[in-house]
């Protein structure tokens, strides 16, 4: 019995069916590179899983040993510095890629009916990625980790009604203690990755069910649906993007390897506390509108972001501002970039 027949008996998928599954025609606009940004975060996520597992072999999630174990990974373990640096840079690029993907989806209106649910799933993926970033840098247990987590918990505390409960859930008590770090570790290494995988599964399934949104550019013929094969055309594009990403990650990890700041000292508040760059915008917002007002306004913005497909649908249906989303999007991007730069430049 040949291998093919042996496999055929056990996996009842014929070659033709497999080709159909993998070779779905893809809209022609995907030949343009910037439309392949959706696969980039997924690819970086795989890099994170792989490097994260290697780092977890050595990481110890206790305040007394966490910093030392990261130091050990960086200085002693073979290729430890490289794996840690790739993990750090892949996290940074993953957030960049998710945001760019979301901006592309927003400006091309790809969230509109019938794809509202997938936009919401995408928003959940954005926040899960940001949470993974937050819990990730908290694990290093340097000054930034400790005080970042403390500030984060205090921000959660100012949320009306649920605040103190959320803070206690985050810190495993009223203040940072022995159990806090293991809570962050479980979130970072188990809960969030599984959540992201499940959300990704839903995200991709919905894309397969609905098909990729088709776009037509000015230089293309009207009325003719042009497609090309996923395999090997689009797969080659994705492989190429993956290889370029690996090259970029490798270059960043060797030229700008992950550093290690001073160890966390609960008795010494740093003169300047700043979170990682991807929270600069939220941090600046909190400084501008202190207290509950900042939290409530931020909550409102997040709510609007989640519900945007429905809000946009209402605007398009009931007003004459059919392209309002573009202007609102430009305004939003300018605010995010501006506030991030402001926080980056400001000393306090």
């Amino acid at each position, binding site marked *: 019995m040949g291998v093919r027949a042996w496999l055929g008996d056990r996996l009842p998928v014929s070659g033709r069916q497999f080709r159909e599954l993998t070779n779905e025609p893809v809209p022609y606009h995907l030949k343009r590179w910037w439309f392949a940004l959706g696969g980039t975060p997924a690819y970086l996520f795989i890099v994170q899983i792989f490097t994260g597992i290697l780092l977890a072999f050595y990481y110890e999630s206790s305040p*007394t040993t966490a910093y*030392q174990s990261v130091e050990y990974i960086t*200085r002693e373990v*073979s*290729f430890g*510095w*490289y794996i840690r640096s790739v993990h750090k840079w892949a996290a940074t690029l993953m957030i960049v890629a998710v945001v760019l993907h979301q901006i592309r989806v927003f400006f091309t209106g790809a969230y509109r009916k019938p794809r509202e649910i997938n936009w919401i799933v995408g928003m959940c993926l954005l926040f899960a990625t940001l949470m993974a970033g937050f819990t990730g840098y908290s694990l290093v247990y340097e000054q930034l980790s400790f005080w970042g987590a403390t500030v984060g918990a205090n921000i959660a505390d100012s949320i009306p009604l649920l605040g103190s409960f959320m803070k206690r859930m985050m810190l495993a008590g009223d203040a940072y203690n022995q159990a806090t770090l293991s809570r962050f570790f479980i979130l970072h290494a188990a809960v969030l990755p599984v959540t992201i995988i499940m959300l990704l599964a839903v995200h991709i399934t919905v894309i397969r069910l609905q098909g990729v949104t088709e776009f037509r550019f000015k230089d293309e013929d009207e009325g003719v649906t042009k497609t090309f094969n996923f395999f*090997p*055309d689009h797969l*080659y*594009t994705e*492989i*190429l993007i993956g*290889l*370029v990403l*690996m*090259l970029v990650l*490798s*270059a960043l*990890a*060797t030229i700008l390897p992950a550093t290690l700041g001073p160890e966390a000292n609960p008795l010494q508040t740093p003169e300047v506390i700043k979170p990682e760059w991807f929270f600069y915008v939220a941090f600046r917002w909190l400084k501008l509108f202190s207290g509950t007002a900042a939290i409530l306004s931020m909550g409102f913005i997040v709510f609007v972001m989640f519900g945007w497909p429905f809000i946009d649908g209402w605007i398009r249906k009931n007003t004459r501002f059919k392209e309002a989303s573009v202007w609102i999007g430009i305004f939003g991007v300018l605010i995010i970039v501006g506030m991030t730069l402001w926080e980056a430049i400001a000393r306090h």
Partner: protein
Amino acid sequence: MTLETKRIVIAATGGLFLLSLVLVQWMETARKAEEAGIRAPHVSVPASSRECVECHAEENPGIVAHWEGSTHAEKGVGCVECHTAEREDADSYLHHGEQIATVVTPLDCARCHDHEQAEFAQSHHAAAGNILASLDNFLAETVEGARLEFNPHSPTPGKAVDMVNGLASAYSGCQQCHGAKVAIQASDGGLITVDDLAPDADGRPTDLDAVGRITRDEDGKPLMYSGTWPNTGIGRLNLDGSRGSCTACHSRHDFSPRRARQPENCGKCHLGPDHPQKEIYEESKHGIAYRDLKDDLNLDAEEWVLGVDYAAAPTCATCHMSGNIRNGGTITHDPGERISWTNRPPVSRVMDTDINHEIVTEADPEARRSLIHDTAEQKRDRMKEVCSHCHSDGYVNSF
């Protein structure tokens, strides 16, 4: 892009990625070789110090060679990073386009090592210069020496000597360990010290009249008084108001942790009839074990934590300063943190210290309790943490 082109680009990018992994492998091998001592560590000369290194490699090759073997060189900390000064600093001068000072003080080191400097500043080491104003100094400056030049009334064959410096034993003796009050020659023939400059918290002089009296050579370099500089005494009274000299233990310019961990380093000062700690140590079981087992002490270890990196024998640093597994590897630059008694006064005192790290002399129990910030018992417990690596509790408590 055609499929064929895509295939070629994928192959090329894949090849480049594999090459990058070869580079990573090369970096890792080089790192391991440096750690194992097979290869000399990579030295990175910062751009600001390139000219210094090139010139001083000719003028004083030893300085550059020592620096090249230092962690500073590995981390890209060059000459200017430590010697940099502000124009307002009393001893600063322009040297080949860089404003520098010859004397590097603890305030300079604190630009990077602020935690270490803060610990050192509160230590008894930093107060070693107090001897200059004490009765002990009477021995050097009056009993053995003289505050004025004097005629030795004894011919020196081959030399026509009629007057000698009476402070030679103070300058070359006591002050080499205790530290000198660093002085610059003044235009009125006197000396300018920290007392005249009255520096502020940042070390900048506030008495500009004193700054105006500083004499300089034709290149603008201040003329230091040779009786007080060179000096690396541990309690040196610096022109910027700081006390001490980090190079007293961390010899320049290699700043070797290995050397600071060895008892011979401490023995430079802690010897002789008035402070014979080195001799006592040498004859003790600790000192005997050190001589026998020095090769097992892993003196080049990065952190040098007792119980992790070594356990063969203790040196002075092991007990008084270095980290151990019981204290989480915490190093202190204040040896007094683990000393519970001082035998220096005629009647020994228990080292209950106040918030300023001064011994509390208050006798009233209530008032005393309110003043004590760190008890002698706490200090003893810190020392016992070290002892307990090799000795049982019963042994330690009964010793």
